[in-house]
């Protein structure tokens, strides 16, 4: 029962999370980050720093979003580790605004 990155990350990729993760459990592609559940220690450090509230303890997911658990596992294993902060995507500010955050 790990922490997961959810849909709010899409088209944002602020990457604040990777700067506070003590175990480098974030992996990602060009548009989204994912948490490797076998490495995450559930410390929760990433949750408050995400500007778009994309990261949740999986126990807090409503049933319709539980697919993010499998998706994080699957994608994290296939993608490289992201541990350095990068510029948010050009779409990030607009996405954040549309989320009302």
């Amino acid at each position, binding site marked *: *029962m790990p922490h997961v990155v959810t849909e709010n990350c899409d088209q944002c990729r602020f990457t604040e999370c990777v700067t506070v993760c003590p175990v480098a459990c974030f992996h990602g592609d060009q548009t989204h980050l994912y948490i490797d559940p076998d490495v995450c*220690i559930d410390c929760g450090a990433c949750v408050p720093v995400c500007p778009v509230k994309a990261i949740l*303890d999986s126990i807090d997911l409503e049933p319709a979003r539980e697919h993010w658990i499998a998706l994080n596992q699957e994608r994290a294993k296939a993608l490289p580790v992201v541990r350095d902060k990068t510029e948010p995507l050009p779409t990030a500010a607009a996405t954040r605004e549309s989320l009302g955050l």
Partner: protein
Amino acid sequence: MSAVPITAAEQTVLGACPHDCPDTCSMLVKVRDGKVTGVQGNPDHPFTRGRLCTKTNHYQERVYHAERVLYPMRRTGPKGNAQFERIGWPEAIDTITSRWKGIIKEHGPTAIMPYSYLGTQGLVNGLTVGDPFFNKLGATISERTFCDSGACTAYIMTVGPTPGMDPESFQHSKLIILWACNILSTNAHMWPFVEMAQRNGAKLVVIDPVRTQAAQVADQHIRIRPGTDAALALAMMNVIIGEDLVDRDYVDNYSVGFDELAAHVRQYTPEFAAEATGVPAEVIRQLARDYAKTQPSAIRIGVAIERSAGGGQLVRALTCLPALVGAWRKPGGGILQLPLWAFPMNWPGLHRADLATPGTRVLNQWELARALAGDLGLDPPLKSLFVYNSNPLIVAPDQARLQRGLSRDDLFTVVSEHFITDTARFADIVLPATTQVEQADLMFSWGQLYLTLNQQAVPPLGEAISNSELFRRLARAMGFDDPLFYRSDEQLMQESMDWTSPALQGITMESLKEKGYARLNLPSHDEYAPHAQGNFPTPSGKVELKASMAAGGNFVLPVFRQGSNDHQDGGPVHALPTFIAPRESQPASAGQGARYPLSMMSPKSHSFLNSEYANIRRQRAHAGEQFVMIHPDDALSRGIAAGAAVKVENSRGAFVAVAKVTDEAMRGVVIAPMGQWMSTSRANATPAALNPIAYADLGRAPTFSDNLVQVSLA
């Protein structure tokens, strides 16, 4: 502390994590309308750096849990059934003190015993909060050797009560050995400093029977049979001395007993150690060379390292190693055991052992099951138990016998708690205790060098009271007239430490209220090398490779026994670090080994703090059901598939767990994390049911990793 204003706007109160963990996080508590809405790590704190952990991230769920004990209660059903009814505080206090007065009249005060440890580890409400009261009462003195007592005795015999390394200085190390330390579960805020060193090119070595998460990212993982680590450490000395890798200048100037040690360790060849530990001789040789040649080198030991028959001498050996190679010369070199000694504590003032009647009997808390069963021949027998800051049914050994003891009708048991724990189910009176956000406290740390103030964030829930208030009320009802029993929390904080000490220079209660924490007045991590030129607080002022204190026999530090130094163990102690084979967990122990061939270890759960949080939905979801890790070969030979329900048993007891078939466990060793409650376990039993009541060689540490069991399909 000042009154807490209740306003509509969200406020942030500077708090501190209360738990028995080396990290002692600075915690931001968010409050709205007099209610805690959330907690968060304090991003300004240089050691804990804005993180809490999976235990405490949602601390408000513990505070406002529907099953919180909020009122005093008395038992209405049979012991163990957890049937209670609400009573008022006056009735609760009167019932307790009336019963005690009767017991004292009939049996004397030693028929009463307190049972407590670090359920909260603040200076106001933690380790010593009840000591002045029980010392004055004349109750049996509790010897509390739950954690690190054996390691402390060994460490102090070797280097004295020195803080040792600053955990932050590990970032400057060139070689780090995490020795029996599951750092990502039990010391997670130190990990970034270790990881920083590794990223800067340091070699990270993990020595552990378990393939822990840190072991998986280490440069080298050395798997070792439980309880045999002293053979490895002594063989490292054999190689370091035999191959002339010793820092002679450091040894000549800052240690005593080198020549005797050199002669003594000739017997501990790498081949001898390979036989004892299961680690190949060549790996041992290379480790010794790497350790000696890669400076500064650092060793971090975990608490459980002491938990086998020779655990004390093992820590003696490990504490000698840095001196042999001159590791102490630079920041980032040495050993980190318990930096608590950096804090200038006023221990005598906290314990007030001077109030006790000289010669009062001392009983080790690990023996509670035997004591209650009448197996110790105690005169007078125990007639009353006062439990706070602890849950003995889950942490103490020999669970089934302890449960029978707690069921005794003639035993008057009081439990102060947040929840109806397995132990509280057997209470005659249950008292409601405050959580950390409902009380004020000042926190030392046994894992870093910051003093942290916990300010009260909200009023107590229901009729909960802090431990300090509990003992004020009990003292009043017992008619104790000394004003020391009625000190306010702020007075207790003021008197808990020596504020004139250099370590506290520049730190005041006012500055703590402002910032929440303060680093002790010590050099920064890139300068802190306290033993670059010796200065060890030992009788000789040097590292005692041959320990002069051994002549006085085995002892437990008074801090672990209410300040008392009476009735110490006094058993013989080897003056030179010596390998003592495990009592049970030996590969060749044919007799018991045939029936119970597997070693069991019961480390802390990742999601629980001992048994705390094991009743809370979030942490239970993360932890899953009680499991036991078993190597695929050991599972196969027993017909055990992954996920099967298995019975883990020995002559002392049994529990049922889900098999996790994994090579995280080594062959011959099974791992069953502790913390789950009996009442939610499949066979109403947990790993403590199998743990022996037996002591390690020093400081009366337990031997929970020196424990043989069998595993079979349930």
